């Protein structure tokens, strides 16, 4: 618990502040001691907690999956291999269902996205105070455990996907084809002059829809997880408000956590599916 001296807004704010390492305005490098200090660091700062948890979870995921892959045999699969194969099969089915081109990158990309985002989201189910309080014992004052509640993490992945979308669009359709896709539709005419007049209109429409892809991808995941985290924090505040409200809060937390299991899986799945769909669109010639 955040302590009696802390106000509710202080408690919430504390929970929403990343452990930021960066350059102080006075020129020295170090960890920001408050949210305001973290803000002052600007772009040249790094969220140590986000990086730690996301990379840690990524290594956790890759460790078990590569272990299973290394032992993978065509014979009778063991427990871990069975589980991994089930997930791989599930992702493979999704990719086969939505992706019609031929690209060896898409399926592993989808698997990474699904499992990694799921694990990041899963950290949301750890009671909000457990890890930050443990960190406090180690002398770390800020600890935001769920990487997917940090827009940097979600935008990082979404931009990664966006770069692939751009790369494959240009690779498959060529620069001209891609530019044509951006400017010659949805409005087109048989008259060349009218077509030229349509170019700016088309470009605005298509550019917005292109840019909307990574932004919606990132903000959907971020928004869902941030809101979920926020509700967990709000429920946690109830523990400070007496026994009855505290017990009520416990029930609420359990209920929300169970509901959240659905959300975290669904968000990971949506991110994966949209990635596949966007890449499929990048592979399609009009």
């Amino acid at each position: 618990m955040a302590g009696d001296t802390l106000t509710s807004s202080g408690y919430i704010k504390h929970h929403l502040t990343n452990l930021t390492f960066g350059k102080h305005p006075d020129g020295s490098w170090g960890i920001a001691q408050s949210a305001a200090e973290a803000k002052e660091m600007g772009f040249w700062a790094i969220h140590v907690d986000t990086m730690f948890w996301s990379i840690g979870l990524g290594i956790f995921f890759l460790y078990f999956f590569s272990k299973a892959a290394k032992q993978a045999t065509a014979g009778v699969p063991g427990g871990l291999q069975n589980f991994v194969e089930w997930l791989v099969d599930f992702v493979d089915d999704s990719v086969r269902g939505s992706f019609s081109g031929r690209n060896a990158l898409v399926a592993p990309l989808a698997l990474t996205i699904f499992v990694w985002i799921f694990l990041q989201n899963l950290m949301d189910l750890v009671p909000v105070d457990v890890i930050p309080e443990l960190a406090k014992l180690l002398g770390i004052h800020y600890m935001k455990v769920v990487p997917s509640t940090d827009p940097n993490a979600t935008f990082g992945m979404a931009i990664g996907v966006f770069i692939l979308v751009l790369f494959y669009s240009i690779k498959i359709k060529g620069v001209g084809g891609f530019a044509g896709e951006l400017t010659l539709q949805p409005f087109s005419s048989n008259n060349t002059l009218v077509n030229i007049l349509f170019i700016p209109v088309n470009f605005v429409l298509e550019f917005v829809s292109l840019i909307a892809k990574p932004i919606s991808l990132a903000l959907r995941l971020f928004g869902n997880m941030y809101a979920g985290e926020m509700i967990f924090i709000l429920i946690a505040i109830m523990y400070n408000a007496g026994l009855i409200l505290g017990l009520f809060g416990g029930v609420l937390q359990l209920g929300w956590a169970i509901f959240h299991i659905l959300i975290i899986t669904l968000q990971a799945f949506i991110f994966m599916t949209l990635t596949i769909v966007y890449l499929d669109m990048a592979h399609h010639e009009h």
Partner: protein
Amino acid sequence: MNINLTLIGQLLAFAVFVWFTMKFVWTPIMAALETRKKEIADGLAAAERGQHEQELAKERAKDVLHEAKAQAAEIVAQAQKRAAEIIDESKDTARVEGERIITAAHAEIEQEANRAREQLREKIGLLAVTGAEKILRKEIGTDAHQDIVSALAKEI
């Protein structure tokens, strides 16, 4: 909530993870799955082939059994025929042998009879001579009338 360098860090981590998954997770697992799929398909095909072969073998076994039965019947028939032949042959042989034995016996009997007749003849001759001798002893000596005795014996 600030957008900062973490974005780049996450992007790089994401890229590395995707690369790692592609190289060390997806490829081997898909290979294993493909191999298993193939093995199962092969197994099913082999089972089907085995079943087919079993059916063929059953058919063949039936044929072989049929043939064997026919052969056995033939062998039995042949054996019976041969047995009859052997019996006939033995009958013939026995008849011939019997005839031979009978002929030999007849010959022997005849020989025996001849010999007995000869002996009898000699004995009778001797008896006659003895008788004559006894008669003649009273009249003449045996030596003087030897030629007559032998002529007599020959005549008998």
